[in-house]
């Protein structure tokens, strides 16, 4: 297999990025016309959740649906939460579900994957202390814990939860993360894959058929009908074989043959087989289907009941301090979404808070314009070192990169490679988005 070419050698066709240029190519199958939701401000370039094992550099995205009124599915989902859903009835269904699986002898009867953030705290607490279940919590460790992420994880466990923390080898995680950045500019992908696969595997190991996730991704833009189901499809975490399976945009076969990864290195990232899960009768439910989910309320709940701490500073690229704060690589994840889709972390945070009724759209627009796309300086050097494939740690994989070391210049060259001409322009000095949400 050919080595990964040096991104610094790429000559971009800059005519495609000229201001005012027309008929511009689009990457990732994104919609041609950029629109911003009339209610929350999210852009129609937002991709839906995908099966990450099939994600390669050629993948095309399905994106969030906007209706004829210019309102996104996430907003319509939020409206349904307030106007249509009978939450008492849903809670009764939850009690019935718990009763169906409830342990009679104190053994674990449900599994709650989480990080110890506000949402998993709320989830496990409600199941244990309100609905009388015996949850086992499981955690796929972040790439690099923040101090406060680790504090919150500890606070969660010491609030009365048993936990298995899976910390995959730093070397395999680093290599897969580098490949994910190099191939698909998705620094968070190996984490997401590991996280999604881990809980069903633990369910099999402990023979616990009931797994609870938090809120459905439909709350953030997946098709509205996804939220009509309480259960998550097996497609996201189960598979029948390694053929056509990709991690970090690289085939499993190539990771073994070319990058020096062993089956053992890859095992934590590989999905469970479907059959044993079916045999166990595994059911993966969204707690958010049964209980009205409000991220800010979960924050309050975790602070009041478990000593959860907001981070001591706002997260790069946004204004908030309480949301998704465990992993130092998180800041880079949202920076890459800003480059690929024109959607940074402030957009994700602010549009969610508009839908929850916590801020007005006018405020969201101001926050998006101020913070979206801010470069994540605070841990940049640490992250670049993490993404560097040095010869000593990676004797085989090192040979597969023309430029194995990640530094600021290399990261910027990669950044430019992933800009879509229909979203980005370059005026000879600076890059800017062709379309920004307008202040009212």
């Amino acid at each position: 297999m050919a080595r990964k070419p040096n991104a610094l050698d790429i000559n971009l066709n800059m005519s495609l990025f000229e201001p005012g240029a027309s008929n511009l190519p689009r990457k990732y199958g994104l919609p041609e016309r950029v629109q911003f939701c009339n209610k929350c401000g999210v852009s129609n370039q937002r991709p839906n959740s995908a099966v990450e094992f099939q994600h390669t550099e050629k993948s095309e995205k399905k994106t969030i649906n906007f209706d004829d009124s210019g309102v996104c599915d996430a907003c319509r989902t939020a409206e349904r939460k307030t106007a249509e859903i009978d939450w008492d009835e849903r809670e009764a269904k939850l009690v019935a579900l718990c009763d169906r699986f409830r342990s009679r002898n104190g053994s674990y009867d449900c599994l709650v994957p989480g990080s110890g953030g506000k949402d998993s705290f709320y989830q496990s607490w409600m199941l244990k202390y309100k609905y009388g279940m015996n949850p086992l919590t499981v955690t796929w460790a972040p790439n690099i814990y923040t101090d406060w992420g680790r504090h919150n994880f500890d606070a969660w466990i010491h609030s009365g939860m048993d936990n298995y923390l899976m910390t995959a080898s730093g070397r395999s995680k680093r290599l897969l993360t580098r490949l994910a950045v190099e191939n698909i500019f998705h620094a968070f992908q190996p984490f997401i894959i590991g996280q999604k696969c881990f809980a069903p595997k633990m369910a099999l190991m402990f023979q616990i058929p009931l797994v609870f996730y938090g809120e459905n991704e439909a709350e953030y833009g997946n098709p509205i009908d996804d939220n009509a189901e309480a259960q998550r499809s097996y497609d996201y975490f189960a598979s029948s074989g390694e053929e056509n399976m990709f991690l970090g945009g690289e085939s499993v076969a190539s990771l073994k043959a070319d990058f020096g990864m062993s089956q053992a290195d890859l095992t934590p990232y590989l999905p469970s087989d479907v059959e044993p899960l079916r045999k166990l009768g595994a059911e993966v439910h969204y707690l958010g289907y049964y209980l009205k989910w409000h991220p800010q309320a979960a924050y309050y709940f975790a602070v009041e009941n478990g000593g959860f701490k907001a981070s001591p500073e706002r997260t790069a690229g946004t204004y908030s301090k309480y949301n998704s704060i465990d992993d130092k690589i998180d800041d880079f994840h949202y920076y890459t979404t800003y480059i690929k889709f024109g959607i940074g972390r402030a957009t994700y945070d602010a549009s969610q808070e508009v839908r929850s009724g916590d801020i007005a759209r006018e405020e969201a627009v101001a926050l998006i314009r101020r913070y979206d796309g801010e470069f994540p300086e605070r841990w940049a050097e640490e992250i670049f070192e993490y993404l560097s494939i040095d010869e000593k740690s990676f004797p085989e994989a090192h040979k597969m990169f023309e430029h194995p070391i990640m530094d600021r210049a290399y990261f910027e060259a990669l950044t430019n490679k992933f800009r879509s001409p229909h979203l980005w322009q370059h005026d000879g000095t600076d890059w800017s988005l062709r379309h920004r949400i307008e202040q009212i």
Partner: protein
Amino acid sequence: MRNLRLIPRLDVKMEWLIKGVQMEGWRKVGDPAEYAKAYADAGADELLFMDVVASLYERNSLHDIVSKVASVVFVPMTVGGGIRTVEDVSAMLACGADKVALNTAATRNPELITDVANRFGAQATVVSIEAIRDKGSWLAMTDNGRNHTGRNVIEWAKEAEERGAGELIITSIDREGLGHGYDLDLIRLVTEQVRIPIVSGGGLGTTDHLSDLIDKTQASAASVAQALHWKKLNMSDLRDTLNANDCFVRRLT
């Protein structure tokens, strides 16, 4: 007899009185003017209004609320949030504020403190410091606890005093909105280092917390928010505590 002022703090976002935890996750409480009037009528010595998103959004929307409150409330009002220039101060005082609280703009341009003090007097010049514990010391933050200033709280407090501030509001971000009590170490340390009055903020949840503040620090005032907004305590509870601790209590008319 000691004088310790009771100052309900009203954080405002757009037209709403709101409340957060650790200066994050704002929840709507109600109409700020209604709450302000109720607290003043019930014995508040002063009121503190903060537009908590003014710096975040680079705006200031308190003028209407301050004008409205000033027409019905007759206790001194300190107003902060988004005050960036001497002209902003002038406009806020014209709306009925008695003092202005400077934070973000002052950390960027400390000369602003001097300018405001020279023009309007030290009695109208308050510096608000949002403090977060960092190992053995405290860092001064801005933008409602979101951004670092690179300043140490004690050093910044001393500089603010030297530049003409007549009062400091010291709010503990770690304890804000939790109701677990003030950061007494922080307040003690600041009061030992400066001579101007210190308003303690962030954490009052029970009357014992007020007694502790009186007992263990030289604070001149206590700011109170969530315990009042969520009706865990009322002004009468706090006034009784002052009485019990031999502090002066203003008579209600």
